[in-house]
Protein backbone atom coordinates (compact mmCIF):
# COMPACT_ATOMS: atom_id res chain seq x y z
CA UNK A 1 0.00 0.00 0.00
CA UNK A 2 1.32 3.45 -0.86
CA UNK A 3 2.02 5.88 1.97
CA UNK A 4 -0.64 8.39 0.77
CA UNK A 5 -3.26 5.65 0.56
CA UNK A 6 -2.38 4.39 4.04
CA UNK A 7 -2.62 7.96 5.34
CA UNK A 8 -6.01 8.50 3.66
CA UNK A 9 -7.46 5.38 5.23
CA UNK A 10 -5.72 5.31 8.61
CA UNK A 11 -8.44 7.07 10.59
CA UNK A 12 -11.01 4.54 9.37
CA UNK A 13 -8.75 1.52 9.90
CA UNK A 14 -7.53 2.69 13.32
CA UNK A 15 -10.96 3.46 14.71
CA UNK A 16 -13.17 1.08 12.72
CA UNK A 17 -15.15 3.84 11.08
CA UNK A 18 -17.39 2.96 8.17
CA UNK A 19 -20.23 4.90 6.61
CA UNK A 20 -23.99 4.84 7.02
CA UNK A 21 -26.52 5.88 4.43
CA UNK A 22 -28.67 8.68 5.83
CA UNK A 23 -31.49 7.67 3.47
CA UNK A 24 -31.84 3.88 3.83
CA UNK A 25 -29.66 3.19 6.91
CA UNK A 26 -27.33 0.72 5.20
CA UNK A 27 -23.89 0.45 6.84
CA UNK A 28 -20.66 -0.01 4.88
CA UNK A 29 -17.08 -0.87 5.70
CA UNK A 30 -14.81 0.19 4.14
CA UNK A 31 -16.78 3.39 3.81
CA UNK A 32 -18.40 4.34 0.51
CA UNK A 33 -19.29 7.61 -1.14
CA UNK A 34 -22.43 6.22 -2.84
CA UNK A 35 -24.90 3.81 -1.20
CA UNK A 36 -24.92 0.56 -3.17
CA UNK A 37 -28.47 -0.15 -1.98
CA UNK A 38 -30.36 3.09 -2.73
CA UNK A 39 -27.73 5.05 -4.71
CA UNK A 40 -27.87 7.94 -2.27
CA UNK A 41 -24.79 10.09 -1.82
CA UNK A 42 -25.85 11.11 1.68
CA UNK A 43 -23.45 8.91 3.62
CA UNK A 44 -22.01 9.85 7.01
CA UNK A 45 -19.11 8.41 9.00
CA UNK A 46 -20.34 5.62 11.26
CA UNK A 47 -18.38 4.16 14.19
CA UNK A 48 -18.69 0.40 14.02
CA UNK A 49 -19.10 -1.81 17.05
CA UNK A 50 -15.75 -3.20 18.19
CA UNK A 51 -17.29 -6.47 19.36
CA UNK A 52 -18.84 -9.31 17.46
CA UNK A 53 -18.81 -13.07 16.86
CA UNK A 54 -16.94 -15.38 14.52
CA UNK A 55 -19.19 -16.56 11.66
CA UNK A 56 -16.53 -18.51 9.77
CA UNK A 57 -12.75 -18.75 9.69
CA UNK A 58 -9.78 -20.28 7.93
CA UNK A 59 -6.06 -20.77 8.51
CA UNK A 60 -3.63 -19.13 6.08
CA UNK A 61 -0.57 -21.31 5.58
CA UNK A 62 0.69 -19.81 2.30
CA UNK A 63 0.42 -16.08 2.94
CA UNK A 64 1.00 -13.21 0.58
CA UNK A 65 4.36 -11.44 0.62
CA UNK A 66 5.12 -9.46 3.79
CA UNK A 67 2.82 -11.67 5.86
CA UNK A 68 5.09 -14.73 5.78
CA UNK A 69 6.41 -14.28 9.31
CA UNK A 70 2.91 -14.53 10.75
CA UNK A 71 2.06 -17.87 9.06
CA UNK A 72 0.15 -19.90 9.91
CA UNK A 73 -2.43 -17.34 10.96
CA UNK A 74 -6.19 -17.25 11.21
CA UNK A 75 -8.56 -15.03 9.28
CA UNK A 76 -12.19 -14.80 10.30
CA UNK A 77 -15.50 -13.53 9.00
CA UNK A 78 -16.88 -11.56 11.93
CA UNK A 79 -20.42 -10.35 12.43
CA UNK A 80 -20.19 -7.16 14.47
CA UNK A 81 -22.83 -6.38 17.08
CA UNK A 82 -24.31 -3.77 14.73
CA UNK A 83 -24.89 -6.46 12.09
CA UNK A 84 -22.10 -5.66 9.64
CA UNK A 85 -19.80 -8.50 8.61
CA UNK A 86 -16.08 -7.82 8.17
CA UNK A 87 -13.01 -9.94 7.51
CA UNK A 88 -10.07 -9.69 9.89
CA UNK A 89 -7.07 -11.56 11.18
CA UNK A 90 -7.75 -13.38 14.44
CA UNK A 91 -5.05 -13.13 17.12
CA UNK A 92 -4.28 -14.29 20.65
CA UNK A 93 -5.71 -17.73 20.05
CA UNK A 94 -4.49 -20.99 18.56
CA UNK A 95 -6.27 -22.53 15.52
CA UNK A 96 -7.67 -25.36 17.65
CA UNK A 97 -9.25 -22.81 20.02
CA UNK A 98 -11.26 -21.02 17.31
CA UNK A 99 -14.95 -21.79 17.31
CA UNK A 100 -17.84 -20.48 15.27
CA UNK A 101 -19.89 -18.12 17.42
CA UNK A 102 -16.91 -17.17 19.61
CA UNK A 103 -17.12 -13.60 20.96
CA UNK A 104 -14.28 -11.41 19.71
CA UNK A 105 -13.26 -7.75 19.94
CA UNK A 106 -11.09 -5.37 17.93
CA UNK A 107 -7.47 -4.91 18.94
CA UNK A 108 -4.97 -2.41 17.56
CA UNK A 109 -2.06 -4.22 15.89
CA UNK A 110 0.65 -3.96 13.30
CA UNK A 111 -0.73 -5.18 9.99
CA UNK A 112 2.25 -4.90 7.66
CA UNK A 113 5.69 -3.34 7.54
CA UNK A 114 7.42 -2.03 4.45
CA UNK A 115 10.73 -3.68 5.28
CA UNK A 116 12.90 -2.29 8.06
CA UNK A 117 13.00 1.27 6.69
CA UNK A 118 9.45 1.78 5.39
CA UNK A 119 6.32 2.75 7.27
CA UNK A 120 4.58 0.50 9.75
CA UNK A 121 0.93 0.00 8.87
CA UNK A 122 -1.34 -0.31 11.90
CA UNK A 123 -4.97 -1.32 12.01
CA UNK A 124 -7.49 -3.66 13.58
CA UNK A 125 -7.41 -7.38 14.19
CA UNK A 126 -9.77 -9.36 16.40
CA UNK A 127 -9.08 -11.37 19.56
CA UNK A 128 -11.23 -13.21 22.09
CA UNK A 129 -13.06 -10.70 24.31
CA UNK A 130 -11.15 -9.74 27.45
CA UNK A 131 -13.67 -9.14 30.26
Amino acid at each position, binding site marked *: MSVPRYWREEKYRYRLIGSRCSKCGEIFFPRRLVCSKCRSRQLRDYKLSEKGRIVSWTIIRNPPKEYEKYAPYAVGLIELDDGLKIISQL*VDLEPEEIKTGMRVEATFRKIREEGSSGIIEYGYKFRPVIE
Partner: protein
Amino acid sequence: MKTNSTVGILGYGAYVPMNRLKGSEICRIWGGYESPIEEKAVANMDEDAVTISVECAKYALKRANINPEEIGAVYVGTESKPYAVKPCGSIVAEAIGATPKVTAADYEFACKAGTEAFQTCIGLVSSGMVKYAMAIGADTAQGRPADALEYTVACGGAAFIFGLKSNSTIAYLEGSYSFVTDTPDFWRRGLEMYPRHGNRFTGDPAYFYHIIGAAKGLMGELGYNPSDFTYAVFHQPNVKFPIKVARTLGFTMDALKPGLVVPLVGNTYAGSTPLGLASTLDFANPGDRILVVSYGSGAGSDAFSFVVQDAITRDRDLDPPVSRFINRKRYIDYSTYVKIRGKIIR
Protein backbone atom coordinates in the same frame (compact mmCIF):
# COMPACT_ATOMS: atom_id res chain seq x y z
CA MET B 1 6.20 20.29 43.41
CA LYS B 2 2.66 21.45 43.96
CA THR B 3 0.14 22.51 41.36
CA ASN B 4 -1.78 25.79 41.29
CA SER B 5 -5.04 23.92 40.69
CA THR B 6 -5.55 20.41 42.06
CA VAL B 7 -5.18 17.75 39.38
CA GLY B 8 -6.67 14.27 39.43
CA ILE B 9 -6.77 11.02 37.49
CA LEU B 10 -9.98 10.64 35.48
CA GLY B 11 -9.26 7.21 34.09
CA TYR B 12 -6.57 4.61 33.68
CA GLY B 13 -6.04 1.57 31.53
CA ALA B 14 -3.48 -1.21 31.42
CA TYR B 15 -2.37 -3.74 28.86
CA VAL B 16 -0.03 -6.72 29.04
CA PRO B 17 0.59 -8.94 25.99
CA MET B 18 -0.44 -12.57 26.23
CA ASN B 19 2.84 -14.41 25.66
CA ARG B 20 4.82 -15.53 28.72
CA LEU B 21 8.39 -16.77 28.87
CA LYS B 22 9.33 -18.57 32.06
CA GLY B 23 12.57 -17.64 33.79
CA SER B 24 13.32 -21.35 34.02
CA GLU B 25 13.21 -21.54 30.20
CA ILE B 26 15.90 -18.84 29.95
CA CYS B 27 17.93 -20.74 32.59
CA ARG B 28 17.57 -23.91 30.48
CA ILE B 29 19.06 -22.21 27.43
CA TRP B 30 21.85 -20.21 29.02
CA GLY B 31 22.71 -22.40 32.01
CA GLY B 32 21.43 -19.97 34.65
CA TYR B 33 20.62 -21.48 38.03
CA GLU B 34 18.06 -19.00 39.30
CA SER B 35 15.74 -16.50 37.61
CA PRO B 36 15.00 -13.21 39.41
CA ILE B 37 11.33 -13.48 38.39
CA GLU B 38 8.95 -16.33 37.63
CA GLU B 39 7.92 -15.31 34.11
CA LYS B 40 7.75 -12.29 31.84
CA ALA B 41 5.30 -10.91 29.27
CA VAL B 42 6.44 -10.89 25.65
CA ALA B 43 4.78 -8.90 22.88
CA ASN B 44 3.65 -10.76 19.80
CA MET B 45 5.15 -10.04 16.38
CA ASP B 46 2.32 -7.64 15.57
CA GLU B 47 2.63 -5.73 18.83
CA ASP B 48 4.95 -2.86 19.74
CA ALA B 49 5.04 0.15 22.07
CA VAL B 50 2.45 1.89 19.88
CA THR B 51 -0.09 -0.95 19.88
CA ILE B 52 0.35 -1.43 23.64
CA SER B 53 -0.13 2.32 24.15
CA VAL B 54 -3.31 2.34 22.07
CA GLU B 55 -4.76 -0.60 24.02
CA CYS B 56 -4.07 1.16 27.34
CA ALA B 57 -5.34 4.47 26.02
CA LYS B 58 -8.65 3.00 24.87
CA TYR B 59 -9.25 1.38 28.26
CA ALA B 60 -8.37 4.66 30.03
CA LEU B 61 -10.79 6.58 27.80
CA LYS B 62 -13.57 4.12 28.52
CA ARG B 63 -13.09 4.50 32.26
CA ALA B 64 -12.75 8.30 32.07
CA ASN B 65 -15.90 8.50 29.92
CA ILE B 66 -14.82 11.69 28.16
CA ASN B 67 -14.86 12.90 24.57
CA PRO B 68 -11.40 12.12 23.13
CA GLU B 69 -11.51 15.40 21.20
CA GLU B 70 -11.20 17.16 24.57
CA ILE B 71 -7.83 15.56 25.26
CA GLY B 72 -5.28 18.29 24.65
CA ALA B 73 -2.09 16.29 25.15
CA VAL B 74 -0.97 12.72 24.42
CA TYR B 75 2.51 11.81 25.62
CA VAL B 76 4.04 8.36 25.33
CA GLY B 77 7.01 7.44 27.49
CA THR B 78 8.98 4.58 25.98
CA GLU B 79 12.43 3.41 25.05
CA SER B 80 11.06 1.01 22.43
CA LYS B 81 10.01 3.50 19.78
CA PRO B 82 9.15 1.62 16.56
CA TYR B 83 10.39 4.65 14.62
CA ALA B 84 13.58 6.54 15.45
CA VAL B 85 11.90 9.60 13.95
CA LYS B 86 8.07 9.71 13.97
CA PRO B 87 6.22 10.01 17.23
CA CYS B 88 4.24 7.25 18.88
CA GLY B 89 2.11 9.99 20.43
CA SER B 90 0.63 11.10 17.13
CA ILE B 91 -0.36 7.52 16.19
CA VAL B 92 -1.99 7.00 19.59
CA ALA B 93 -3.77 10.37 19.35
CA GLU B 94 -5.10 9.45 15.88
CA ALA B 95 -6.19 5.99 17.01
CA ILE B 96 -8.21 7.30 19.96
CA GLY B 97 -9.70 10.23 18.03
CA ALA B 98 -7.88 13.05 19.83
CA THR B 99 -6.48 14.60 16.64
CA PRO B 100 -5.94 17.24 15.32
CA LYS B 101 -6.25 19.78 18.20
CA VAL B 102 -3.74 18.10 20.47
CA THR B 103 -0.09 18.27 21.46
CA ALA B 104 1.63 14.90 21.13
CA ALA B 105 5.18 13.68 21.65
CA ASP B 106 7.30 10.88 23.04
CA TYR B 107 9.36 10.92 26.18
CA GLU B 108 12.60 9.05 26.75
CA PHE B 109 14.09 8.68 30.20
CA ALA B 110 14.67 4.92 30.36
CA CYS B 111 12.18 3.39 32.81
CA LYS B 112 10.82 6.70 34.09
CA ALA B 113 9.71 8.07 30.71
CA GLY B 114 6.10 7.25 31.60
CA THR B 115 6.09 9.24 34.85
CA GLU B 116 7.98 12.06 33.13
CA ALA B 117 4.89 12.22 30.89
CA PHE B 118 2.78 12.34 34.11
CA GLN B 119 4.67 15.45 35.24
CA THR B 120 4.08 17.28 31.96
CA CYS B 121 0.41 16.33 31.77
CA ILE B 122 -0.15 17.43 35.37
CA GLY B 123 1.50 20.77 34.61
CA LEU B 124 -0.53 21.33 31.43
CA VAL B 125 -3.82 20.55 33.18
CA SER B 126 -2.97 22.55 36.28
CA SER B 127 -2.02 25.61 34.24
CA GLY B 128 -5.27 25.45 32.30
CA MET B 129 -3.52 25.00 28.96
CA VAL B 130 -5.46 21.80 28.29
CA LYS B 131 -8.64 20.33 29.77
CA TYR B 132 -7.48 16.71 29.76
CA ALA B 133 -4.05 15.17 29.17
CA MET B 134 -3.04 11.56 28.63
CA ALA B 135 0.27 10.10 29.82
CA ILE B 136 1.31 6.61 28.79
CA GLY B 137 4.24 4.45 29.85
CA ALA B 138 4.74 1.47 27.53
CA ASP B 139 7.64 -0.64 26.39
CA THR B 140 8.69 -3.75 24.54
CA ALA B 141 11.97 -3.82 26.40
CA GLN B 142 15.22 -5.04 24.90
CA GLY B 143 17.61 -7.50 26.52
CA ARG B 144 20.73 -9.05 25.04
CA PRO B 145 20.56 -12.87 24.88
CA ALA B 146 22.24 -14.43 27.94
CA ASP B 147 22.52 -11.05 29.68
CA ALA B 148 21.20 -10.73 33.23
CA LEU B 149 18.53 -8.35 31.90
CA GLU B 150 17.11 -10.99 29.58
CA TYR B 151 15.39 -12.67 32.53
CA THR B 152 13.34 -9.58 33.37
CA VAL B 153 12.87 -7.28 30.34
CA ALA B 154 9.21 -7.43 29.40
CA CYS B 155 6.37 -5.81 27.48
CA GLY B 156 3.34 -3.90 28.72
CA GLY B 157 2.12 -0.51 29.79
CA ALA B 158 -0.54 1.71 31.31
CA ALA B 159 -2.23 4.99 30.41
CA PHE B 160 -3.58 7.72 32.67
CA ILE B 161 -5.89 10.61 31.84
CA PHE B 162 -5.46 13.72 33.99
CA GLY B 163 -7.98 16.51 34.52
CA LEU B 164 -8.79 19.03 37.23
CA LYS B 165 -9.95 17.43 40.49
CA SER B 166 -13.72 16.91 40.56
CA ASN B 167 -16.28 14.33 41.61
CA SER B 168 -15.35 12.43 38.45
CA THR B 169 -11.64 12.03 39.27
CA ILE B 170 -10.75 8.73 40.89
CA ALA B 171 -7.67 10.09 42.70
CA TYR B 172 -6.13 13.50 43.12
CA LEU B 173 -2.52 14.57 43.31
CA GLU B 174 -1.18 16.08 46.52
CA GLY B 175 2.28 16.78 45.19
CA SER B 176 5.21 15.43 43.19
CA TYR B 177 8.98 15.47 43.48
CA SER B 178 11.60 14.78 40.82
CA PHE B 179 15.17 13.77 41.67
CA VAL B 180 17.67 13.62 38.79
CA THR B 181 21.46 13.28 38.40
CA ASP B 182 23.80 12.27 35.58
CA THR B 183 24.43 8.64 36.57
CA PRO B 184 25.49 6.30 33.73
CA ASP B 185 24.14 3.02 35.12
CA PHE B 186 22.36 1.82 31.94
CA TRP B 187 22.30 3.13 28.40
CA ARG B 188 21.71 2.24 24.77
CA ARG B 189 23.58 4.13 22.07
CA GLY B 190 21.91 5.13 18.81
CA LEU B 191 21.43 2.24 16.33
CA GLU B 192 22.42 -0.31 19.00
CA MET B 193 19.93 -3.16 19.40
CA TYR B 194 20.56 -3.84 23.08
CA PRO B 195 21.38 -1.69 26.11
CA ARG B 196 24.48 -2.00 28.29
CA HIS B 197 24.51 -1.61 32.03
CA GLY B 198 26.85 -1.30 34.97
CA ASN B 199 25.79 -4.55 36.70
CA ARG B 200 25.94 -3.91 40.47
CA PHE B 201 26.46 -0.20 39.80
CA THR B 202 22.74 -0.12 38.90
CA GLY B 203 21.90 -0.68 42.60
CA ASP B 204 23.08 1.68 45.36
CA PRO B 205 24.27 4.77 43.42
CA ALA B 206 21.50 4.48 40.85
CA TYR B 207 18.16 2.83 41.75
CA PHE B 208 18.27 3.16 45.53
CA TYR B 209 19.84 6.62 45.72
CA HIS B 210 17.30 8.18 43.37
CA ILE B 211 14.17 6.35 44.54
CA ILE B 212 14.93 7.00 48.19
CA GLY B 213 15.89 10.62 47.39
CA ALA B 214 12.61 11.27 45.59
CA ALA B 215 10.46 9.43 48.15
CA LYS B 216 12.04 11.21 51.13
CA GLY B 217 11.95 14.53 49.28
CA LEU B 218 8.21 14.25 48.60
CA MET B 219 7.33 12.98 52.06
CA GLY B 220 9.41 15.80 53.55
CA GLU B 221 7.64 18.47 51.48
CA LEU B 222 4.19 17.07 52.29
CA GLY B 223 5.01 16.32 55.95
CA TYR B 224 4.14 12.63 55.66
CA ASN B 225 5.68 9.42 56.99
CA PRO B 226 5.41 5.96 55.40
CA SER B 227 2.59 5.15 57.85
CA ASP B 228 0.48 7.90 56.23
CA PHE B 229 0.33 5.87 52.99
CA THR B 230 -1.99 2.91 52.43
CA TYR B 231 -0.07 1.76 49.37
CA ALA B 232 3.33 2.31 47.78
CA VAL B 233 4.50 1.64 44.24
CA PHE B 234 8.21 1.63 43.45
CA HIS B 235 9.76 0.96 40.06
CA GLN B 236 10.11 -2.79 39.77
CA PRO B 237 13.08 -3.96 37.67
CA ASN B 238 13.04 -7.21 39.65
CA VAL B 239 11.37 -8.47 42.83
CA LYS B 240 14.27 -7.75 45.17
CA PHE B 241 14.78 -4.01 44.55
CA PRO B 242 11.27 -2.65 45.31
CA ILE B 243 11.02 -4.86 48.41
CA LYS B 244 14.40 -3.64 49.65
CA VAL B 245 13.50 0.01 49.06
CA ALA B 246 10.14 -0.46 50.82
CA ARG B 247 11.86 -1.98 53.86
CA THR B 248 14.54 0.72 53.87
CA LEU B 249 11.92 3.47 53.87
CA GLY B 250 9.64 1.69 56.35
CA PHE B 251 6.74 0.51 54.17
CA THR B 252 5.02 -2.80 54.86
CA MET B 253 4.66 -5.62 52.36
CA ASP B 254 0.87 -5.11 52.54
CA ALA B 255 1.39 -1.60 51.15
CA LEU B 256 3.59 -2.87 48.35
CA LYS B 257 1.83 -6.07 47.33
CA PRO B 258 -1.14 -4.82 45.21
CA GLY B 259 1.17 -3.00 42.83
CA LEU B 260 3.95 -5.56 42.69
CA VAL B 261 3.34 -7.10 39.29
CA VAL B 262 6.95 -7.85 38.33
CA PRO B 263 7.09 -11.53 39.41
CA LEU B 264 4.54 -12.54 36.75
CA VAL B 265 4.89 -9.73 34.19
CA GLY B 266 8.55 -8.70 34.30
CA ASN B 267 10.07 -5.26 34.03
CA THR B 268 8.00 -3.35 31.52
CA TYR B 269 10.45 -0.42 31.71
CA ALA B 270 8.53 2.85 31.16
CA GLY B 271 5.36 0.82 31.75
CA SER B 272 6.56 -0.60 35.06
CA THR B 273 5.58 2.11 37.57
CA PRO B 274 2.35 3.11 35.71
CA LEU B 275 1.35 -0.57 35.59
CA GLY B 276 2.07 -0.88 39.32
CA LEU B 277 -0.11 2.19 39.99
CA ALA B 278 -2.90 0.78 37.81
CA SER B 279 -2.79 -2.50 39.71
CA THR B 280 -2.86 -0.66 43.04
CA LEU B 281 -5.87 1.44 41.95
CA ASP B 282 -7.67 -1.82 41.14
CA PHE B 283 -7.53 -2.58 44.88
CA ALA B 284 -7.71 0.92 46.38
CA ASN B 285 -10.65 2.41 48.25
CA PRO B 286 -11.73 6.03 48.72
CA GLY B 287 -9.41 7.83 51.14
CA ASP B 288 -6.40 5.61 50.52
CA ARG B 289 -3.16 7.50 49.98
CA ILE B 290 -0.71 6.06 47.40
CA LEU B 291 2.99 6.87 47.09
CA VAL B 292 4.30 6.27 43.57
CA VAL B 293 8.04 6.46 42.83
CA SER B 294 9.50 5.60 39.45
CA TYR B 295 13.13 5.13 38.53
CA GLY B 296 14.79 5.67 35.18
CA SER B 297 18.41 4.96 34.42
CA GLY B 298 20.57 7.86 33.47
CA ALA B 299 19.21 8.61 36.17
CA GLY B 300 16.26 9.89 38.10
CA SER B 301 13.01 9.30 39.98
CA ASP B 302 9.60 10.95 39.99
CA ALA B 303 7.56 10.64 43.19
CA PHE B 304 3.81 11.32 43.44
CA SER B 305 1.29 11.26 46.27
CA PHE B 306 -2.26 10.45 45.18
CA VAL B 307 -5.38 10.31 47.38
CA VAL B 308 -8.10 7.97 46.13
CA GLN B 309 -11.57 9.49 45.72
CA ASP B 310 -15.12 8.10 45.79
CA ALA B 311 -15.28 7.80 41.99
CA ILE B 312 -12.88 4.84 42.19
CA THR B 313 -15.87 2.63 43.01
CA ARG B 314 -17.82 3.89 39.97
CA ASP B 315 -17.89 1.46 37.07
CA ARG B 316 -15.03 -0.50 38.59
CA ASP B 317 -15.71 -3.45 36.30
CA LEU B 318 -15.83 -1.32 33.15
CA ASP B 319 -12.25 -2.25 32.21
CA PRO B 320 -10.37 -5.47 32.85
CA PRO B 321 -8.21 -5.16 35.98
CA VAL B 322 -4.45 -5.66 35.67
CA SER B 323 -4.87 -9.12 37.22
CA ARG B 324 -7.02 -10.13 34.24
CA PHE B 325 -4.10 -9.40 31.92
CA ILE B 326 -1.67 -11.17 34.24
CA ASN B 327 -3.81 -14.31 34.21
CA ARG B 328 -4.43 -14.17 30.43
CA LYS B 329 -1.37 -15.99 29.17
CA ARG B 330 0.10 -18.39 26.67
CA TYR B 331 3.50 -19.92 27.39
CA ILE B 332 6.14 -19.80 24.69
CA ASP B 333 9.52 -21.49 24.48
CA TYR B 334 12.84 -19.73 23.96
CA SER B 335 12.93 -20.41 20.23
CA THR B 336 9.52 -18.79 19.75
CA TYR B 337 10.70 -15.91 21.92
CA VAL B 338 13.75 -15.15 19.79
CA LYS B 339 11.65 -15.41 16.65
CA ILE B 340 8.88 -13.04 17.71
CA ARG B 341 11.27 -10.55 19.33
CA GLY B 342 13.26 -10.31 16.09
CA LYS B 343 16.48 -11.75 17.52
CA ILE B 344 17.00 -14.01 14.51
CA ILE B 345 18.34 -12.34 11.39
CA ARG B 346 16.94 -14.08 8.32
